[in-house]
């Protein structure tokens, strides 16, 4: 059993996990459906969102330059990182230069992708995750299992246990309200005491040099405002031309993610503290990270760079909803992860991800920027086939079948032969066990073929006429 299959088996055996997945994704799906139903212009907005992202990606050099120039004018310091490691080094370097003992972090999937939590720990800097879900998994020492709800795999009971073990004066922890309050109390002083606050960016606004964060908790602003230094890490694909386009993208992003019309807090950060400001960071750094984006651009995955990280594709994925996020073994789970991960981690290692998909297309249907996820997933299968990663037995089975499929007479002979053998294994109308069919019959019965191919019967039929 390979590593992926092992994780799948474990996930499927975990009944609590399935309960947790259903609780959150069922709510997410019904809320999104309601939000889209209340927005008849959605289809048009989605096309516009797609075209805005395509426009920016096609003119990435132009907009990156524009963003850099404008951000510098506001007093932001711009850093460029080719790889995740380079980005981590830059962030750790800024923290050290600022003599930082403690940093607060507001959830950023890019941060997870480049391994920033680990890099900070390795540098001996206290890291405080401020997003409630990230706080939960930090206490549990786990990785996120969803890009919007990183602690989706945890039930309330499990969260209660964690807080009891780790919080100061948690009080009663029977209700979700009590748990949220305990986290509020425990994180309060940490927000104010941090030397550096690190956030991601949902959008980079090219014509002003602003960066946009969205949260429901308000933790991004509490992370970025009190400390002396604010560091932003952002993928270079996060650009939008201006605030106008940001508004369209926000409408699409938030409804697709949580079903709300706007997150409770949507903030545009432009440079450091101004003269007379009583709060705000003295230093404002933006680290622009490639980490595989230009590779995706070069290898035919430009459409994937539209991704807003809304999570709708995984909430609607039949596979994700059975196995959860950890089974994917990567930062990004679900359909979007099955496209991104082979590019980031290499196809050989992650070849199961694009294969473990029914290509049903619901992910594409709900994607707010119309990313053709099934097509991109199938693209990886093509590469895997060409590079010889298909397991030998299925590759040969397919080759033999293809050999027959282009030889219709032989094909009919072979079919009719097989159809004479299959009934041997049947009991009544059903086959519940048959050699070479274990993949099917382990869990399902197979109907006994009706007998003789359609073509053979049709021929007889015609002859009798």
């Amino acid at each position: 059993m390979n590593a992926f299959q092992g994780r799948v088996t474990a996930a499927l055996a975990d009944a609590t996990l399935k309960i947790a997945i259903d609780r959150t994704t069922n709510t997410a799906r019904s809320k999104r459906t309601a939000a889209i139903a209340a927005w008849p212009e959605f289809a048009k907005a989605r096309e516009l969102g797609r075209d805005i992202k395509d426009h920016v990606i096609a003119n990435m050099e132009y907009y990156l330059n524009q963003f850099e120039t404008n951000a510098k004018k506001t007093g932001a310091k711009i850093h460029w990182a080719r790889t995740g490691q380079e980005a981590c080094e830059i962030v750790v370097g800024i923290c050290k230069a600022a003599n930082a003992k403690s940093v607060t972090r507001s959830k950023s999937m890019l941060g997870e992708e480049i391994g920033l939590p680990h890099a900070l720990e390795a540098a001996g800097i206290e890291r405080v995750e401020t997003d409630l879900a990230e706080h939960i998994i930090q206490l549990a020492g786990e990785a996120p299992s969803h890009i919007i709800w990183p602690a989706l795999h945890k039930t309330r009971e499990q969260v209660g246990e964690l807080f009891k073990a780790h919080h100061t004066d948690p009080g009663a922890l029977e209700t979700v309200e009590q748990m949220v309050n305990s986290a509020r109390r425990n994180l309060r002083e940490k927000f104010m005491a941090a030397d550096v606050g690190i956030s991601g960016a949902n959008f980079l606004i090219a014509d002003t040099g602003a960066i946009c964060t969205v949260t429901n908790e308000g933790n991004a602003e509490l992370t970025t405002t009190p400390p002396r230094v604010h560091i932003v890490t952002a993928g270079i694909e996060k650009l939008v031309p201006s605030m106008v386009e940001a508004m369209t993208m926000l409408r699409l992003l938030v409804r697709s993610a949580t079903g709300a019309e706007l997150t409770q807090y949507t903030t545009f950060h432009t440079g450091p503290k101004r003269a007379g400001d009583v709060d705000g960071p003295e230093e404002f750094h933006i680290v622009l990270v490639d980490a595989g984006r230009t590779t995706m651009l070069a290898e035919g995955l430009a459409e994937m760079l539209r991704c807003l990280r809304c999570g709708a594709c995984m909430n609607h994925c039949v596979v994700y909803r059975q196995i959860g996020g950890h089974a994917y073994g990567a930062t990004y789970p679900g359909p979007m992860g099955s496209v991104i991960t082979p590019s980031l981690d290499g196809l050989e290692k992650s070849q199961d991800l694009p294969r473990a998909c029914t290509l049903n297309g619901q992910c594409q249907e709900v994607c707010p920027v119309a990313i053709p996820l099934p097509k991109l997933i199938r693209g990886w299968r093509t590469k895997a086939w060409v590079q010889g990663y298909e397991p030998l037995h299925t590759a040969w089975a397919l080759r033999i079948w293809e050999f027959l499929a282009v030889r219709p007479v032989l094909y009919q002979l072979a079919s009719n032969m097989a159809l004479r053998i299959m009934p041997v294994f049947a009991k009544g109308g059903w086959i519940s066990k048959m050699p070479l069919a274990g993949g099917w019959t382990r869990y399902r019965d197979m109907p006994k073929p009706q007998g003789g191919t359609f073509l053979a019967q049709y021929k007889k039929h015609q002859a009798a006429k």
Partner: protein
Amino acid sequence: MSNAKKAIFAAIRKALPAPASAPTIAAELTQLRARVTATRPDRVSGPPDEVFLDRVQSPGVAATAERIISWDEFPAVVMRYAEQHHLAPNIALQPHPDLEALNWGGCQTHDHIHTDETLAVGLALGGIAETGTLIFHSSPQSPTLFAFLPLHHVVAVPYKNIWSWMEDYVASFDGKSPPRNVNFVTGASGTTDIEGALVRGAHGPGWLHIVVVGAAAQ
């Protein structure tokens, strides 16, 4: 140019070997902008301040709200709010001259915000009817943390600064250099991180009360 920037741009150039000219890009962008109006949720019918009042009290935003006609009524609204919620009349008053000019007799005010502030009173720059959003621009008169640290946030917003759609707000600041922070606040803080259940007051305020000030002459 840093080496990293050079390498990234070289990689982009390799993948996209024929970059468009600035005028072509601008023309394309103009075409994209022409499509925005048709994509907005077409539900803002009626005066924006009325739609806004409706929207902020809708289940999705779940703030409480009221309207007063003149600024002078605002302190009384705050006092009443404090009473209703059994809060001491001790408020963090956003250091804005328009607020400071009001008569706050009967309560204690301070112009800075504590980590564990119970009640803060603020003035928003404006609002957006479409989404029921308050907008704050950071400045010496409008410190960012006023909207994030208190447990209760009572916010006045002038009815004249309520825009119909998000784009209308953007258009009215077009060409002006933005403040350090533009904060869109849409309802009280919340989280759905534990089992998708919505709980208010995660880190930011747990209660948001909005007071629209003024009304169009009848």
